[in-house]
């Protein structure tokens, strides 16, 4: 009887695959567990380490699993409490294929394989779980339903689980290439290539690669009759052979093939032809690897049938964003990819609802508003949307509206299950107020624009960031045209919007200190959304509307466009554009770190340098503020 073993058994029984075992069995396992404390950034095992005699369960903290390619670390997965990892010793005899490193101080249970093996043998559920988890490197607790009993989807994406920004992923390639000696004749080599289903053979002398023959050589030199079939391969080989280091990335391999005009690369120990051959990368390997890219993610979206599948894709997107940020890919570029995938998910949600409800009785368009409308949604935030349907005869109005309300309810529910929370202010299409005909919407916008002071509690400026997600483009354009017509020279509306933009709280105190939140739960943190990002977003919207800029909803692009249209203030706009990116990055990093919307930055965790960077990003706001005041003559009011 061991008290701690019981506590550990209690802990384990909450998580698969341990939930398939009896408490008695778990206590027995727990009695053999080794508890390890990993300090932050400490490595538990790394690539090519000899396998340990146990696998691991995170008891507390977080462990990052990563691979290294092109001398860069790519995160594969984060393991939280209850996650199982390091299963390799169970199935494979070769060394570890990834690195496990503590992201924060973590306590890990090491379960000896020898102890656990009998339970696997006697319990098919446990075995299945382990096999599936192993196929996907590790196991994500959020996929619980999907990983039980069956794999999520019938496509390679889940089976292989390549989460990184695909282009930078390391390649899987033939690690046991066909090696022949220089004196072998062509026929012999051709026969062996056929036997091995290989498109190439490396010619080695003293274990060092001196050349390569490929299908092309066989075709152009032997089959063409240029050389006899009995000739030694060294007379027809291509030499020297193009060599690369291990863990080369897709991008680099592709570049080398194009540069050298070859279809095969030889992987050697140190990347030169003076070391041992490790494998052969063929063009085919590149094609296979390329199938995993953001484009495929979008394809996946189009194929998904339920919120669960959408949710998984949204999670992959989060990882893609995280990896891209780790790799310092420009945020504007990440933003583009993310918003495309986001849009595809929104669109699919509407589609799924239509599939369930039957064809709509009238034409309509589903519009995103707010951050989705601006296409700058990197983190999972709440959903904001409206629905506009075409005008119908009054006797049909009720039925039509009922259909669309039903449609909206279904769609927002699907999106909620996907992970987008409903807007706390009710700015969603399933709200009766925001699901109406084009005429009603025109009236709505007219009243907002012409009498902004009245009913202003209903007016949220996010209604002016519109983006078509699904449906008729014409309806969307009709509405947009109407908005731009009405606001032209409407100083009252700009007064209102301008004052609204200026009303936001300053990020720094008089003494140039950060203004921290005073109340729980975010006490002492910095609200980057309302204090730093919103003023820029509002400013960009205000000027974009003022100059009738259409087609650019993104704050960054709006500023860029403004710099072109209004060249005398170009510096201010460009600085704002830069600042917006810097601030967004802070928010995204904070959000990814804490798996939330990143609205509140924990200043105590920032380095001094980062704090300075953050402060510097506030500088353009002052200029923007002045610009708003002078442009819309607001000085006398504010």
């Amino acid at each position: 009887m061991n008290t701690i073993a019981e506590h550990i058994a209690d802990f384990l029984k909450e998580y698969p695959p341990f939930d398939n075992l009896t408490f008695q069995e778990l206590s027995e396992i727990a009695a053999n567990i080794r508890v390890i404390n990993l300090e932050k950034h400490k490595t538990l095992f790394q690539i090519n380490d000899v396998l340990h005699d146990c696998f691991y369960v995170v008891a507390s903290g977080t462990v990052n699993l990563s691979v290294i390619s092109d001398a860069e670390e790519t995160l594969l997965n984060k393991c939280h409490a209850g996650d199982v990892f390091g299963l390799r010793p169970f199935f494979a005899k070769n060394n570890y294929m990834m690195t496990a490193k503590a992201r924060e101080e973590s306590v890990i249970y090491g379960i000896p394989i020898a102890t656990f093996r009998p339970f696997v043998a006697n319990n098919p559920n446990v075995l299945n779980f382990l096999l599936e988890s192993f196929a996907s490197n590790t196991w994500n607790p959020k996929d619980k339903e999907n990983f039980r009993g069956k794999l999520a989807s019938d496509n390679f994406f889940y089976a292989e689980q390549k989460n990184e920004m695909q282009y930078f992923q390391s390649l899987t390639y033939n690690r046991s290439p066909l090696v022949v000696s220089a004196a072998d004749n062509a026929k012999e080599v051709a026969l062996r290539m056929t036997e091995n289903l290989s498109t190439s053979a490396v010619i080695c002398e003293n274990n060092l690669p001196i050349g390569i023959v490929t299908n092309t050589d066989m075709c152009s030199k032997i089959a063409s009759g240029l050389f006899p079939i009995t000739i030694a391969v060294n007379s027809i080989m291509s030499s020297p052979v193009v060599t690369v280091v291990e863990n080369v990335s897709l991008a680099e391999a592709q570049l080398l093939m194009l540069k050298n005009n070859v279809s095969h690369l030889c992987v050697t120990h140190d990347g030169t032809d003076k070391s041992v051959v490790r494998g052969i990368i063929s063009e085919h390997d590149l094609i296979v690897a390329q199938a995993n890219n953001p484009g495929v993610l979008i394809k996946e979206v189009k194929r998904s049938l339920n919120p669960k599948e959408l949710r998984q894709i949204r999670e992959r997107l989060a990882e893609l964003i995280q990896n891209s940020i780790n790799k310092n890919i420009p945020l504007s570029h990440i933003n583009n990819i993310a918003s495309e995938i986001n849009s595809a998910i929104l669109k699919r949600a509407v589609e799924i609802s239509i599939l369930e409800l039957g064809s709509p009785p009238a034409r309509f368009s589903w519009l995103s508003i707010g951050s989705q409308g601006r296409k700058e949604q990197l983190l999972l935030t709440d959903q904001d949307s409206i629905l506009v349907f075409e005008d119908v005869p009054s006797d049909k109005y009720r039925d039509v509206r009922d259909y669309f309300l039903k449609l909206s309810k279904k769609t927002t529910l699907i999106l909620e299950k996907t992970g987008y929370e409903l807007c706390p202010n009710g700015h969603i299409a399933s709200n009766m107020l925001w699901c109406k005909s084009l005429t009603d919407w025109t009236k709505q916008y007219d009243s907002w624009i012409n009498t902004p002071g009245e009913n202003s509690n209903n007016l949220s400026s996010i209604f002016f960031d519109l983006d078509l997600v699904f449906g008729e483009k014409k309806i969307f354009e009709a509405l947009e045209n109407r908005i731009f017509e009405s606001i032209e020279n409407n100083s009252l509306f700009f007064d209102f919007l301008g004052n609204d933009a200026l009303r936001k709280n300053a990020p720094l105190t008089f003494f140039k200190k950060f203004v921290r939140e005073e109340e729980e739960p975010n006490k002492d943190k910095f609200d980057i959304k309302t204090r730093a990002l919103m003023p820029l977003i509002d400013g960009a919207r205000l000027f974009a509307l003022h100059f009738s800029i259409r087609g650019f909803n993104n704050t960054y692009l709006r500023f860029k466009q403004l710099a072109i249209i209004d060249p005398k203030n170009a510096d201010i706009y460009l600085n704002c554009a830069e600042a917006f990116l810097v601030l967004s990055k802070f928010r995204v990093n904070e959000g990814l770190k804490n798996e939330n919307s990143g609205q509140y930055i924990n200043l105590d965790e920032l380095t001094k340098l980062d704090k300075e960077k953050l402060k510097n990003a506030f500088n353009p706001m002052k200029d923007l503020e002045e610009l708003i005041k002078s442009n819309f003559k607001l000085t006398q009011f504010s």
Partner: protein
Amino acid sequence: MLDWLKNINKEYPDFWKTYLSKFEEKPNRFVVFTTETTGLNPYKDVILSIGSFAIVKNSIHIGDSFETVLLQYKYLHDNGLSNEFIIESRMKKLSEPDAIQAFIDYIGNSVLIGHHIDFDVEMINVSLERLGCGRLKNEALDIDVMYRKLIDANDKQFSLDELSDIFKLPKTYRNTPSEDAYTMALLFLKLKSRLGIK
């Protein structure tokens, strides 16, 4: 080397001789232990239970543990205390001589780890005295001292609760000496790596 000289006048029990012989080798194992006692006076008070875990190669071996409740009928009777706790407990129960002997067998030449360990060692020593044995020979490390060394402070003692707070360990489990020992073991691992002890 001169052990036989010390032993010449005194016939130690066999288990104690075995224990002493273990010290010819260097220890490769840590044993974290704590005792639950009736009070703070080593001579008047007695040990009620012992909980301990072994640490080998930086990991706590859950299976390599020792926990027992000591049956102290005499002490409880003399002091008019109830023995309900002892009867109710599901832990292994041993009489004091058996428990101490088993504990000595268990620790061997390991380095002992504890919180304010001097007191725990003293309690064991007094029990050993009653069995006609010598004093513990093991090296001992105190996690409070280790922590104070880490933060370079000498003016304050830190309780186990405070240390658990500092290192963000849950305190909910701490009801039995085994659970205390486990907490100490985790603290020891954390302190050990921070202090760079091999």
